[in-house]
């Protein structure tokens, strides 16, 4: 019988708080008057804030194993890396809940389940950041994913949302299946090991074909989750069809947790020179995938007229830049720099990507979907109609394009720095060139907001909502703040990435 100490619980506090918050909210939903649901979004944000506070002590702490069993590597580890991911997840949850509050109230669809599901999912994400065992990672992925399947189907009227929900469920289940198959192969190849540090020792002498197959399948499972090309097909449809706040949560939360687990599995479990190497190891694999993802995401975003779909492709493109960081981590001496870059980029994307989706959700038509619901035309003349919203959106677009003085620029700076340190020059140049392509579609939104007048029938925009406005303000301040004073998070990211070595 394993003995759990109080440090285990302290390290798991963010996860536990999120689960507890979800349960409390479900209970409240039962006993509360159904007309008084306005508090739920704020309650969720408060829980997210609390969980975030609980994750803070992890940032500076020395890594120590938790959930350890005699004779086996620990299932999880309490370290800065996991703490940083938990922080990002909590941030994404809090912001998305606020945006969802306004969104759902306007559509008269405010229910406690929504927030409870989001909290459960966030618990899974936070756990994923801490896991160091292939099995626990699998469990955390499922805890994260299943509530999101439900959330994607939350407003399922109409063809698009139904398609989105179904597609996400099927392909999500597929990807976890592929992952667990890969894990099983690794289990076989290493003689029954699932803990990452055990695996690291077992594969020191080199790998068999079985191991490589397992490694590839695990990679594919993760690449599916984060929406990297060529496993990105589901992303645009799902992102477009899901309720926009859910899309935002998916884009920032799932991505952060997925990358965290991916980095941990490959760097800790398969970090050995012969496996990681940039010519023949997984470093090369991720380099190729990063290249394809950057090109595909950016090129396919160009023809989109639906801003929401454009942002979906942009999310793919950003996964490509993050993968560039993962590829750089293939070189042992740049791991710390690559990890720092990935963490900072994730934080920057959380503010910026969320912000962009939140603006879309604030403009969306109230009567459900429709071809025009997210069309660029809805943004025409926004600079006059809603100056604050237009300024915020401009900031997000500028940041997504990686132009200073925003968080997106610093993120790209860190990622490209890692790529150059790892001598991935071609990839860095490809990253730069694809960023140029991205300018076109990001700028187009700005052009519509400031330089075009809305034509034809007057576009009716929904009333601004208090909680969504707060969320947007936080996102905008974060985007600009991280651009001007990157040290606020940069130092923490650097400290947290130390555990990756190098």
């Amino acid at each position, binding site marked *: 019988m394993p003995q759990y100490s109080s440090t285990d619980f302290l390290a798991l506090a963010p996860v536990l708080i999120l689960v507890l918050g979800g349960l409390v909210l479900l209970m409240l939903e039962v006993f509360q008057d159904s007309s008084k649901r306005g508090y739920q979004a704020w309650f969720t944000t408060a829980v997210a804030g609390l969980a975030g506070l609980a994750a803070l002590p992890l940032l500076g702490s020395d890594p120590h194993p938790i959930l350890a069993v005699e004779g086996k590597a620990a299932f999880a580890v309490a370290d800065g890396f996991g703490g940083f991911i938990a922080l990002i997840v909590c941030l994404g949850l809090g912001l998305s809940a606020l945006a969802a509050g306004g969104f759902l109230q306007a559509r008269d669809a405010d229910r406690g389940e929504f927030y409870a599901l989001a909290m459960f999912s966030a618990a899974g994400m936070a756990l994923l950041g801490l896991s160091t065992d292939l099995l626990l990672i699998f469990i955390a992925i499922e805890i994260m994913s299943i509530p999101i399947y439900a959330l994607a189907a939350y407003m399922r009227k109409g063809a698009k949302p139904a398609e989105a929900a179904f597609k996400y469920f099927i392909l999500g289940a597929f990807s976890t299946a592929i992952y667990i198959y890969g894990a099983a192969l690794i289990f076989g190849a290493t003689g029954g090991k699932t803990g990452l540090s055990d695996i690291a020792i077992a594969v020191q002498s080199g790998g068999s074909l079985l191991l490589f197959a397992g490694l590839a399948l695990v990679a594919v499972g993760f690449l599916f989750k984060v929406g990297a090309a060529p496993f990105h097909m589901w992303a645009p449809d799902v992102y477009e069809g899901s309720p926009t706040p859910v899309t935002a949560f998916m884009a920032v939360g799932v991505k952060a947790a997925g990358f965290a687990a991916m980095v941990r599995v490959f760097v800790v479990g398969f970090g050995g020179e012969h496996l990681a190497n940039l010519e023949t190891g997984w470093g090369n694999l991720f380099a190729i995938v990063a290249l394809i993802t950057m090109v595909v995401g950016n090129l396919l975003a160009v023809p989109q007229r639906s801003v929401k779909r454009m942002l979906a492709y942009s999310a793919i493109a950003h996964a490509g830049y993050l993968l560039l960081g993962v590829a750089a981590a293939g070189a042992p001496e740049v791991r710390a720099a690559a990890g720092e870059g990935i963490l900072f980029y994730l934080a920057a994307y959380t503010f910026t990507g969320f912000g962009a989706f939140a603006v879309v959700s604030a403009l969306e038509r109230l009567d459900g979907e429709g071809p025009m619901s997210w069309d660029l035309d809805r943004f025409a003349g926004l600079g006059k109609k809603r100056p604050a919203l237009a300024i915020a959106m401009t900031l997000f677009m500028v940041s997504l394009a990686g132009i200073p003085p925003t968080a997106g620029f610093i993120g790209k700076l860190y990622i490209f720095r890692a790529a150059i340190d790892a001598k991935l020059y071609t990839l860095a140049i490809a990253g730069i060139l694809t960023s*140029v392509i991205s300018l076109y579609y990001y700028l187009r939104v700005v052009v519509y907001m*400031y330089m075009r007048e809305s034509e034809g029938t007057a576009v009716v925009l929904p009333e601004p909502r208090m909680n969504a406005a707060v969320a947007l303000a936080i996102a905008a301040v974060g985007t600009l703040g991280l651009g001007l004073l990157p040290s606020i998070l940069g130092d923490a990211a650097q400290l947290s990435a130390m555990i990756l070595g190098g």
Partner: protein
Amino acid sequence: MGAALHNLLSIITFLPLLGALVLLFVPDGKVGRGVAFWTSVVTFLVSLGLLAGFDTASTQAFQFEVNVPWVESAGIGYHVGIDGVTLLLILLTTFLMPIVIASAKSGITTRIKEFSLAMLVLETAMLGAFISLDMVLFYVFWELMLIPMFLIIGVWGSENRIYAAVKFFIYTMVGSLLMLLAILYMYWLTGQGGGERSFDYFAFLALEIAPQVQIFLFLAFAIAFAVKVPMFPVHTWLPDAHVQAPAPGSVVLAAVLLKMGTYGFYRFAFPFFPHATFELRWLIVALSVIGIIYGSLMCMAQRDMKKLIAYSSVAHLGFVMLGLSAFTTAGASGAVYQMLNHGISTGALFLLVGMLYERRGSRLIADYGGIAKVVPAFAAVWLIVTLSSIGLPGTNGFVGEFLILSGTFFSKMPKGMMWGTLATSGVVLGAVYMLWMYQRLWQGKVTKKENENIHDLTLREWMIVGPLVALIFVMGLYPTPFLKLAAPSVDRFISQLEKHDSTLAGDPPASIGAKAMEAKAPTAALEPAELRVNPDQIKPFVRRPQAVLPKALPVGDGAAIPGQGQR
């Protein structure tokens, strides 16, 4: 007071941004422009403090230096400082901004507050780019310039504004991103010696980069700056941007933004990569000369005044680049001087075109003709600015072009004579297209009925162009104080390159600048004492033509010139 003086540069740079913040809280409409105008006036007045505090005798490379860590973990610092050249460019910027904002009163009638906001942010970005001595800081300001300018063209421009704005943005961005990559690579190099990595200017300057690598890095930097200059063949965004931009936007674009490119070569591209600079100098020089001739020829074919002036910018900036890459004291100080001249003359021209456009709603030359009779004062001002742009002795343009050409003739540049001669044809062509435009616009009979009732310059318009016209004469007749400010910095620029290869850079012994001689023969016996006046090497250089220059005169423009330049 000490702290204020110490941080003077930062205060000047961020004052406009402060004004922009205030602007966020004022109601729409004219108040916004008032705030912007007074902010820019205060910024100008404060920037005069730099002039007072700047020490030309100092041996420091940079003055008013401040260096505090910004992102310590990544080796990024808030490192700012100026030399004489930067000082002049800063003053040019702060001097022009109030004029530009004041001139927007009649041209910009919609969304005035947003326009003022964009202008102030732009001013901070421009000043910031000039003072930055940390590459990331520089890059941040450099990119920050794009967004307000993009909005200014795209929101307040004319018919085809969106196309022009996007083209402007994408051209500039492609170049800058390549530069970013080069910066990151050099940052990686700074850590190769085992020390802490850094983005600092001096860390980059101290790098010993392998020659083959230098070529690539130099190209990455050069493309970014060449787009901005703009040099042939990446100049095509400029005519579009200028034609579509509103008049105040064109003025800022021409007067300050383009200088970023040449400044970038002066401050970063040439000093960082001396080997590549010499290796690829032929390319820079050839493109500059092509730019001069091609730009001038294009000018003659234009029917749109703004397009004509835009192409004339290509030619003028070609002169600047030629002077810079001559690597002689005369060439480089001429280039610096020409940067200021171009800012003033072309800025004034765009202002005048804007005023004409407000009266008649047309930028086509054919829509005017003979209007000097209707508006004589306007015509006179136009003529003065035209002559300054051509480089008539007595105006500022002459001093710049003369120094550049003589610096090119007497340089260690391979085939310097040939390039100089070719460039001189640009001077002639310049006179042709500018005077031809003047003739078509102003002289002869009034060809169109609508033009009979246009009114002459108003008091407000006099206030706007007056300072510029005054400067044209001041800088034309008494260039010494301006050149003196730039001299030590120009010398440092030349001697850095000369140290690398004294057969290709520096003043040749036969030339007028005594610097090279001094460096090699400190005995001073070779030179009469009074010719080595220090620290204002420039004075001899404008006075001395009588003694040494005769050789140059037949090729230069006009023999009456040398003496006039000084008095």
